[in-house]
């Protein structure tokens, strides 16, 4: 089966054409600064042309052997699994815009354009938040008045597709039941998953909370928002801009960095960043182990999953766990599937549930 996958972020759309019989994508590309429905339609037409040029006819992309899979960052509490896109879904997503005002509008535009350019091709939507709809109440809610929870304030995770993959692979390969899933993306996230259910996750109501990212602050004292507003005489929009685009490891290092820099270079300018990252991971692993009451396996996924080869042994050494009267150190595993491969899997599972 061939699956055209789309992974949109605020600044770019990545796409691939996956063949479920093959490890490597048949086609891949990326478009930066996508804006407005006409631009998106133009992008999709070009993608369609490339597919046709690579040997597929118009008819071929409408058969049951061809599908589209789209990653959507936020589906609220209503989208609990990957679904086939239809008009009802579009209407529901429109309702959720106030809860994800930055991410949902462009995604809705993308879905509309997919329906326009690929009208006969079945499209599935994989929501990053679906995996977290069953987060326990104790982890889900903040200590604020329920008036705020009633308007949808709750904790989600934002790398649910990777965490689900980590759990399934951990179970399949090592029969692990209690897993710490460490997703190493530009905005990293840790989830504790026991028997397939997430019990803890580092992100919050938005992806800003949790571990620091390359440009995002992560968890900070909530008082800092009003303190900065008062002292710097700036409003929430400007503070938001600072905390989402100028903070994180970029702020720590004083320049643009990647996790490759932080973990591969020994220069002193990266030491604090590396220490902050490792410490944040260790601390949150402790919380995850408390949530599960145990640990079978640590799994690294995401674009930087290979860095797990450095972080894994460090964590293993730091975590001394009491098991049957003995001290044990947890096992770890790095998985290398990228998000597009997982989007293809999501489409397969949704369209052929008996096979998966």
């Amino acid at each position, binding site marked *: 089966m061939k699956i055209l996958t789309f992974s949109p972020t605020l600044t770019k759309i990545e796409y691939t054409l996956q063949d479920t019989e093959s490890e490597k994508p048949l086609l891949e590309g990326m478009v930066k600064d996508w804006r407005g429905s006409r631009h998106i339609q133009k992008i999709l037409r070009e993608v369609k042309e490339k597919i046709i040029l690579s040997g597929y006819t118009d008819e071929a992309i409408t058969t049951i052997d061809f599908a589209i899979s789209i990653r959507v960052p936020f589906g609220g509490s209503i989208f609990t699994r990957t679904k086939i896109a239809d008009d009802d879904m579009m209407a529901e997503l429109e309702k959720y815009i106030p809860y994800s005002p930055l991410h949902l509008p462009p995604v809705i535009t993308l879905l509309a354009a997919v329906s326009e350019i690929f009208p006969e091709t079945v499209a599935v939507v994989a929501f990053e938040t679906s995996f977290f709809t069953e987060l326990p109440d104790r982890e889900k809610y903040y*200590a604020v008045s329920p008036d705020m929870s009633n308007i949808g304030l709750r904790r989600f995770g934002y790398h649910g597709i990777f965490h689900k993959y980590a759990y399934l692979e951990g179970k399949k390969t090592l029969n692990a039941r209690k897993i710490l899933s460490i997703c190493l993306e530009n905005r990293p996230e840790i989830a504790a998953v026991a028997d397939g259910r997430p019990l803890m996750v580092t992100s*919050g109501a938005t992806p800003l909370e949790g571990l620091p990212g390359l440009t995002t602050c992560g968890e900070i*004292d909530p008082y800092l928002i009003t303190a900065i*507003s008062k002292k710097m005489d700036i409003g929430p929009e400007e503070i938001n801009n600072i905390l989402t685009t100028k903070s994180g490891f970029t702020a720590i290092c004083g320049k643009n960095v990647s996790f490759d820099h932080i973990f591969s270079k020994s220069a002193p300018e990266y030491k604090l960043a590396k220490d902050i990252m490792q410490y944040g991971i260790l601390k949150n692993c402790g919380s995850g182990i408390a949530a599960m009451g145990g640990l079978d396996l640590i799994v690294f996924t995401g674009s930087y999953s290979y860095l797990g080869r450095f972080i894994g042994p460090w964590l293993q050494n730091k975590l001394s766990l009491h098991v049957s009267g003995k001290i044990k150190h947890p096992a770890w595993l790095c998985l290398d599937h990228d998000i597009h491969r997982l989007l293809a899997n999501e489409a397969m599972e949704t369209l052929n549930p008996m096979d998966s």
Partner: protein
Amino acid sequence: MNVLVFNCGSSSLKYKIISMPGEQELAGGAAERVGPKTSEPSRIVHRYNGKTEIIQVEMRNHHESFLEIMKLLSKYPDLIPDAVGHRVVHGGKYFTGPVISNDAVMEKLEEIKDLAPLHNPPIMELMYACGKSYPDLPQVPVFDTAFHSTIPDYASAYPIPSDICTKMNIRKYGFHGTSHQYVVEEAAKFLGISKSRINAVSCHLGSGGASLCAVSKGRSIDNTMGYSPLQGLVMSTRCGDLDPAVSMQLLSLHENNNEEVDKILNRQSGVLGLSGYSSDIRDVLNSIASGGSHDERLLKTSEVYLWRIKKYLGAYLAVTGKVDAIIFTDTIGEEVPFVRANVCLGMEIFGLSVDHAKNNNAHKLPVDISAENSPVRILVIATNEELAIARRTYETITGRPIKAVTQDLKS
């Protein structure tokens, strides 16, 4: 040496006279309803020799309450102070330990006043009053943040632009340091470990504020509170951890009214906000236990409150490594066995195992409530911030560490 310890609240001034190094509490009390007139007159409640005396006297500010307390103490020759120790909430970046107060110290305190606008100014008013009326009486400010000055930079740095951090002195300061340090030292004594070698997680669970502290080799390496006492655990009316985007959303919703947002997060959230019933977690737990309450809000409050403690306990057990003990202290930590049992439940993986009979009968403190085979000791220790302040004051003035003095006395 008689050390007069002051613990200054916004409308009260608590005091104790402690004879050092023998650590004997000679007298204590509190000036109450200090400030503008209230429905009841301001008064001093004074305890001495097993008797309680109530003196009604007008005290319009902390300066006046200080003078009245000194006037009262002067009637008892054995209560004349030789030094004063003050509990100071915030020492900012300047004070990593107690100091003898002088003009330079006061200047630095003025400089960092904004870091604790509600707490530090009344204490400074008191220190100025003391310096003016009793210039020869040495004063030692003991800072709640000082114990946490050893938190390493990777745990204390906030990843936000350095120009903002520098301008606002932003870092994790941590709080409740005087209490954490006290109970950790007491735990070391209890376990027969040197206080410079103990590894522990201290759980200061007050009925108002609460924080956990990770301790390695007797030094604080992390605290759940941050730049302010708002971060971390769920507290009586404080929200604790919250997605920064939610704070920004609130600020937007309230048209940039910072005071309103601070009020919501500091005074209308936490146990009170979640339950809509009481700001005291004991009320919530009692209501659930006695009535078999199925009120969804109360159950949720209890779950969120307890989980946040356990979540950080796991985190700090992981970062501390080989832990000798976890310590429960302050009102909730000392008095509510259910909280201790619940927080330790399912934590065998970290070496914690509670003896439930011991836990339910933990009245005479300090006490070890862990099961015999528990690799990590679980201790309940009564905090005594006033005694801790007296110790620090004595050490600062004499230059002699209190441990050595205690050993001398025993020998």
